[in-house]
């Protein structure tokens, strides 16, 4: 083990909760064995890219996916204040097959609504990785594009596409609900054209994304890929 990796290991251990640390456990029959909760309790298998096979079938499925966008109800920033109007009489996004789901397992769209603090980025990554394969990221606001007015803040990221594969950016601070709806339309076009393969990109460029994420999340105390 080189010094560098050892340092990283030690640093990682510092932030781990007591029950997640590696330890030697004695079984009831007296046999001693090592327990590594990060390996044993969580599945840290790398994600696998699952490329579409049959083009005709995939086109049909993509159409169904595009018309049934289940959005994770995770308001990561101030753009989230325009999500409730989207679901109410004036804008009524339900008409376009957009529905909110409370758990990441069942959702297919992650909306990063505005600036992303480092603490939230960690949760957003976890939520994203728990979503199932055709999954899309919609980023709202200038702050996710280039930092916006928080370009000099020590706690908000500058560009989201270094950490998560973004499908559509909606500019503005904050984007109006109309802009958000048109962002959803763009996303639908992308999905129907078969270009929204963010999940596969994430799996293919996994190491690059992880390196970027670990650069700013200094207390990385979870498995590399947590689903």
């Amino acid at each position, binding site marked *: 083990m080189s010094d560098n990796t050892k340092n990283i290991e030690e640093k990682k251990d510092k932030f781990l909760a007591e029950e997640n640390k590696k330890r030697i456990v004695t079984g009831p029959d007296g046999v001693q064995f090592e327990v590594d909760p990060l390996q044993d309790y969580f599945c840290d298998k790398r994600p696998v890219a699952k490329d579409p096979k049959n083009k005709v079938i995939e086109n049909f499925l993509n159409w169904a996916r595009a018309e049934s966008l289940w959005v994770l109800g995770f308001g990561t920033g101030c753009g989230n204040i325009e999500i409730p109007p989207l679901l*109410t009489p004036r804008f009524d996004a339900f008409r376009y097959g957009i529905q909110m789901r409370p758990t990441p397992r069942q959702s297919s769209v992650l909306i990063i609504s505005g600036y992303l603090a480092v603490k939230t980025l960690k949760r957003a990554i976890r939520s994203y990785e728990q979503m199932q394969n055709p999954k899309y990221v919609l980023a709202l606001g200038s702050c996710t594009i280039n930092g916006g007015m928080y370009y000099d*803040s020590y706690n908000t990221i500058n560009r989201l596409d270094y950490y998560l594969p973004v499908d559509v950016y909606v500019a503005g601070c904050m984007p109006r609900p109309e802009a958000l709806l048109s962002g959803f339309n763009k996303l639908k076009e992308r999905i129907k054209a078969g270009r929204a393969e963010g999940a596969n990109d994430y799996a293919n460029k996994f190491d690059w994304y992880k390196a970027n994420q670990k650069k700013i999340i200094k207390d990385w105390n979870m498995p590399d890929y947590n689903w």
Partner: protein
Amino acid sequence: MKKNNKIWQGDRSKYPAFDEYGNPIIDLKSHKFTKLWHGPNHPGVTGNMSLELTLSGDEVVEAKTHVGYLHRGFEKLMERRLYIQCFPTCIRMCVPEADSNEYVLAASIEELGGIEIPEAASWLRTLVLEMARLQILLRTVPGQAATLSLGMGAQWGMYLRDLILDRFEELTGGRIYHMFIIPGGVRGLLPAGFKKRMEENLVEIEEFIDKIEDLIFTNAIFKKRTIGIGYIDPSWVDKYGIVGPNARAAGYNRDVRKDYPYLKYNELDFEPYVGKDSDVFTRSQVRKHELIQTVDLIRQILAQVPEKGDIRAKTPNVLHWELPKGETYQRSESSRGEYGLYVVSDGSKYPRRVNLRGPSYTHAVALLEKLLINANIADVHSIMVSLQTCPPEIER
């Protein structure tokens, strides 16, 4: 602990056990307790914050609030911005009611710089602040029922809120962030026909209030779920720094608009509604009466606001505007309670320190952690919404 007279609600006075300081003894390895995280990605918390709950059965025995998911470091960022540049930054501190942010910063700068704002600007500021209160109350009053899965009122309310946001667009050009109040005055006068359109909306809102009275406040199940839940002892009000509607529901007649009249509030005729039972139902009643009162206040303001006149006091060139050395604290009454800004100037072009005092700072951390103890897991969301917590003003 008082004895239960209902046999199906077991006597919990002995379990969990308490140590000598009155804290429950929680041993997670005993498998008697469950640790449950509410949030940040959970529909049952307000905004982006999280609650770490330790449950014993259905009952919460320990709650911890975790914030910081929305931290942008505003107070640091404003130290490297000119006073005029602080405005676009400042209004994003608390999103749902952005105009309070504008007002407190403008008032602080005027106080330190010794600027008097013109009559018309003062009226327009009052109008904008009340409209902001109206739009947030249209969301939160029926929102209390939405926490108990009665979402109809919230849907209607959000539509009316959109109408008020339309009026905001007409007046200021912005939907959520207006930047209408600037140091020395406001940016514009009322557009033609504004009063008439506003009046139409107000009539619609009054009909809506009648509707939610029937739908929500006389609903037996709503009463059953809210009366007696989330009780704030009136003696906690000073101990925990409770302000605004939450303090008024506990019987304290505290309203910054009355106690420290700013702008034109001493020329308006209103009396804050004071509840006495201090539970979730009373707090929602207080907010409903505040909604009725706000509609009335906007009518009063519209009757008196000048159609034309000077709206901007003379200020120095904003690029070289140096405030004299000093410090001040300016407060306003937001829909959540006392909302203030503490500004320290060191005589340069940049503020030395800006600190926001948001009501949620105490409501969502110290008070919520206390209130959730012994609450049912089903009531966590409704207690939280009844305090009207807003995470961005905790961490800024």
